[in-house]
């Protein structure tokens, strides 16, 4: 009896809460353009989720303080409604549904990670709500024929294929032997596809092709194999834990390999956590602050990094930079569309062709950004390893340091 009462009162409280929160926002309220985003503020993606949110907020403040968005002769300001998706795809899809059908949001910003973007994209597509996303790189997002999805970043299959080209080039144009270990999630498997294509293109051979589990914290077996077969390049992609585990065990097991290419180095704070052991690792990055792209809101990368550091007290990872770029894209599209009609904004987004501090942005029909190459940086340390820096080494156009190749053997380090 008592329990029934409790349940009843709980339900009525819930109903009350719901009925009060349905006061729907419209897409544009007064002089505000309301954007919605489900974002991982808790759960396993929370650190990158926060980078994403910081990137969004920084751009909102900057655009609003520099005149806002001009549509139909009137000035509007951006505002974002955030919900915490708990790093859970199902929750993210529910929240997208809620943002659109309850809160009346008509323009969306993406969540963090390919998996969550994949969960949200069908929802935004169903309602014809344009979504600009900055943190879902999986190629499968761009092959589904989505019309309302736009990604400011390069797709995952382009993350590390540059490294294979580089290895071949250093090998005098001859094919190389590749060892690779990839986690089995959408993103890493796309990176793997990119490597397979690069291997085929260059005639290179893949001699170790390991898959890493989600709960990875030991890859000694893979590395022992690498040690035994001596490949020319070792490629590892398993998010931050893959990068950290690989560097720790490569150093402990003294695995000598001429080139080591990875993803998620800056998210893993590789050089901070591992110091000199992380030296010479090559890392794929969407953006680096030394790149010289420019726009009028943030200036260039160095300026962005300095402003970001001032506001949030840490060096911006590329996850933050690309998130900021997403808002620049929205602003540009609204002004060109000169309307808040979803269809017109969508068409304006599709016709985007602009430069931001983060890079050039131009969308392919699938929605991915085709105008911005990935960069590779190499971790370089001073003699005693007290200070390590990431220096861009490829593509040559943006390089700020020369690639060190091959990696010196552990007996010399």
């Amino acid at each position, binding site marked *: 009896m008592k329990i029934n009462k409790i349940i009843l009162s709980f339900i009525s409280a819930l109903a009350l809460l719901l009925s009060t929160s349905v006061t729907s926002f419209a897409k544009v309220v007064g002089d505000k353009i309301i954007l919605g985003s489900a974002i991982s503020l808790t759960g396993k993606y929370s650190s990158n989720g926060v980078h994403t949110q910081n990137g969004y907020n920084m751009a909102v403040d900057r655009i609003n303080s520099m005149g806002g968005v001009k549509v139909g002769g009137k000035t509007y300001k951006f505002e974002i409604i955030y919900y915490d998706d708990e790093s859970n795809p199902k929750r993210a899809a529910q929240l997208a549904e809620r943002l659109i059908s309850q809160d009346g949001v008509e323009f969306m910003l993406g969540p963090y990670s390919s998996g969550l973007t994949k969960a949200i994209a069908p929802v935004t597509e169903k309602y014809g709500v344009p979504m600009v996303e900055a943190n879902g790189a999986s190629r499968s997002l761009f092959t589904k024929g989505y019309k309302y999805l736009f990604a400011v970043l390069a797709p995952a299959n382009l993350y590390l294929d540059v490294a294979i080209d580089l290895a071949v080039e250093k090998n005098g144009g001859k094919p190389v032997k590749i060892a690779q270990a990839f986690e089995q999630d959408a993103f890493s498997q796309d990176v793997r596809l990119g490597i397979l294509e690069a291997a085929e293109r260059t005639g290179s051979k893949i001699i170790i092709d390991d*898959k890493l589990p989600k709960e990875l914290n030991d890859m000694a077996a893979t590395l022992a194999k690498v040690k035994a077969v001596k490949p020319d390049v070792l490629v590892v992609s398993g998010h931050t834990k893959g990068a950290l*585990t690989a560097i720790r065990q490569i150093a402990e097991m003294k695995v000598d390999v001429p080139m080591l290419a990875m993803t998620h180095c800056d998210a893993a704070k590789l050089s901070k956590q591992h110091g000199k052991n992380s030296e010479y690792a090559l890392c794929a990055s969407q953006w680096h602050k030394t790149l010289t792209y420019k726009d009028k809101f943030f200036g260039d990368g160095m300026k962005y990094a300095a402003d970001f550091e001032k506001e949030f007290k840490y060096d911006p990872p590329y996850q933050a930079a690309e998130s900021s770029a997403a808002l620049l894209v929205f602003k540009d599209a609204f002004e060109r569309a000169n309307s808040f009609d979803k269809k017109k904004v969508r068409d304006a987004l599709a016709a985007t062709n602009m430069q931001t501090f983060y890079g050039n942005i131009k969308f392919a029909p699938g929605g991915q950004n085709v105008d911005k190459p990935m960069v590779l940086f190499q971790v370089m340390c001073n003699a005693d390893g007290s200070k390590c820096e990431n220096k861009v080494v490829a593509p040559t156009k943006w390089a700020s340091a020369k690639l060190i190749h091959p990696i010196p053997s552990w007996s010399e380090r």
Partner: protein
Amino acid sequence: MDFLIFQVPMLTLQATLDGVLLGILFALIAYGMALQWGVMNIINIAQGDLVILGGYIAYFMYLWGIHPAWGVIVSPFIMYFVGVGIYKLVINKVVDRDLFISILATFGISILFMQLMNFAFGADVVLANSGYGTTMLFDNSVTLPNSKIFSAFISIIFAIGLVIYMKKSKLGRAIRATAQNARAAKILGVDTEKVYAATFGINAALCGVAGALISITFTIHPYMGLPYTIRSFMIVIVAGLGNLPGVAMSGMGLGVFEEFADYILGTEFRIGSVFLLLVLILVYRRFKLSRKREYLK
């Protein structure tokens, strides 16, 4: 490629040694589980999360500039009180109930711990560097990280210390008496409530030691606890309760099994193969039991 391990004998040796060192560490966690399972009849699903929490203690010491190896001393101290706290708040209410209730309760604690750690420490994967270097054997073809050797060594010391403590000390005797027959122990003046709290505390302390060692050898992350729970559960199932040599042997066996599974099936099946083995062992045990019953009929 899959069978490279059998073509290169050094790899076989490498895998075996890696497995043994790893297995000793697993055995330490399993020993704690066996102890409190035996005494209180509670299967602690939060075991792995206690391990990770212990790891974070060592990690924070490392951040404050203290060598993380001291974590094996500090972490069990703190974790002992965490364990007693959990006992006083939750476990003492389920200790006399059936196994299902206690599994649910500890499962809840596990989820709570994961979320709290994620909230307090962030979702980043972290590690503590011991700077212990590497031991090279056979002309650099077999490498053993000293951190792994250190882990195994410390685990053995703690296990032996605990065995002696259980045999000689008053509390140890009280714990063993309670495990044998809680009611009789109570009648003879043993404060079983205290014994239970101490047992849970000791288990948490062992998890703390293991966690500190894991932060030195591998990586820690708020959501990485469950595989450690599963492993220790399995080791205990194989070895049985109150059988320390059995726990040590089955721990090492599991370690070696995992390493070989890693080489032969691939790293992606490493944890999967542990689950598969668990199912096989449970089925086999059941099969054996049912045969026995038929025989008795």
